[in-house]
């Protein structure tokens, strides 16, 4: 068994190691380049497609739970008409981090196949755990997805209420706190918060 696998691997390696007999160097170089462009383009297109709201709510788990809750909030509709949809907050914009997040999210495919949260009850039972994952993620990356739009440098404290400007100019400014520390549950309903710091 093992020797057969070894033979196959060796054959494969010898095939790759030999120079091409039938195809010209030009064909291989150009063909490789074009195939690369197509593959790369396709990969990114697929990646982008998986980042759309349409894709997210194609699963009823998202459409009937978190998506409905988002629609009550200011991130959905507001005076200036800027909307933050699923991927704006849940997927990093930068490529490396985005790929890392996408790989993590492949577990959601597993969850979908095996129906981990395929009923409202299962979702509610798991809400605290799911929320904790997101809180931890945003805490760790210093609320990166919030800051993709809400940049501290662009904040005009005089335009904020007194309370807000006080908090933002102290705890947020000195890095003691990050957005998610205070702004939990701004886009979805909160789970049972007993034991969460700041909510006891």
């Amino acid at each position, binding site marked *: 068994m093992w020797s057969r696998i070894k033979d196959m691997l060796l054959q494969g390696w010898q095939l790759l190691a030999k120079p091409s007999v039938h195809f010209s160097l030009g064909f291989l170089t150009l063909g490789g380049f074009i195939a690369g462009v197509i593959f790369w383009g396709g990969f990114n297109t697929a990646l982008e497609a998986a980042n759309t709201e349409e894709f997210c709510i194609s699963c009823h788990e998202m459409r009937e739970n978190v998506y409905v809750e988002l629609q009550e909030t200011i991130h959905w509709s507001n005076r200036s008409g800027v909307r933050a949809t699923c991927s704006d907050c849940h997927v990093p914009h930068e490529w490396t981090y985005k790929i890392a997040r996408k790989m993590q999210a492949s577990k959601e495919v597993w969850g979908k196949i095996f129906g981990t949260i395929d009923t409202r009850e299962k979702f509610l039972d798991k809400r605290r755990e799911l929320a904790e994952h997101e809180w931890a993620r945003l805490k760790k990356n210093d609320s990166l997805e919030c800051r993709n739009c809400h940049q501290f440098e662009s904040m005009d404290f005089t335009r904020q*209420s007194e309370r807000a400007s006080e908090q933002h100019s102290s705890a947020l400014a000195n890095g003691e706190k990050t957005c998610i520390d205070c702004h939990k549950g701004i886009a979805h309903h909160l789970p049972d918060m007993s034991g969460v710091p700041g909510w006891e």
Partner: protein
Amino acid sequence: MKKIIALLSMVGVMAYVLAEPQIATLRGTTDLDQEGQAPRMAAEVNDDKRTDRDYPMAAPSIPHKIDGYQIDLNANKCLSCHNRQRVEESQATMVSVTHFMNRDGNFLADVSPNRYFCTQCHTSQIDVPALIENEFITMDELLNRAGSSH
């Protein structure tokens, strides 16, 4: 005779009804089969200024915006600043001690469940002219009147 009295009283009632075209003050002059124009939504007062209370047990109004605040079995956004353990960090007013008392008068460690739903008594305000005249007489006014009559 009875018929004449009945007729007269009917005419009287009709005259009264006709002379009073505004049945409901809030409705205005919009016809009953028409839908009136809704007034513009006003912004919530957000100045953090405490307001007067007309009697000692009056529930204070909320001087800031509370839209999107979740108050349910899972979480209470108000208490995340106003609860006993939270006021040091938030520097918000602590909920009144009466709210820690259950119906038997015993003080609990946390806000009593029958005082948990803040917006049953406390409301944020909007800065709009009153829709109808407010005839409420404050306790102080009442005391003043009682004092001057003696």
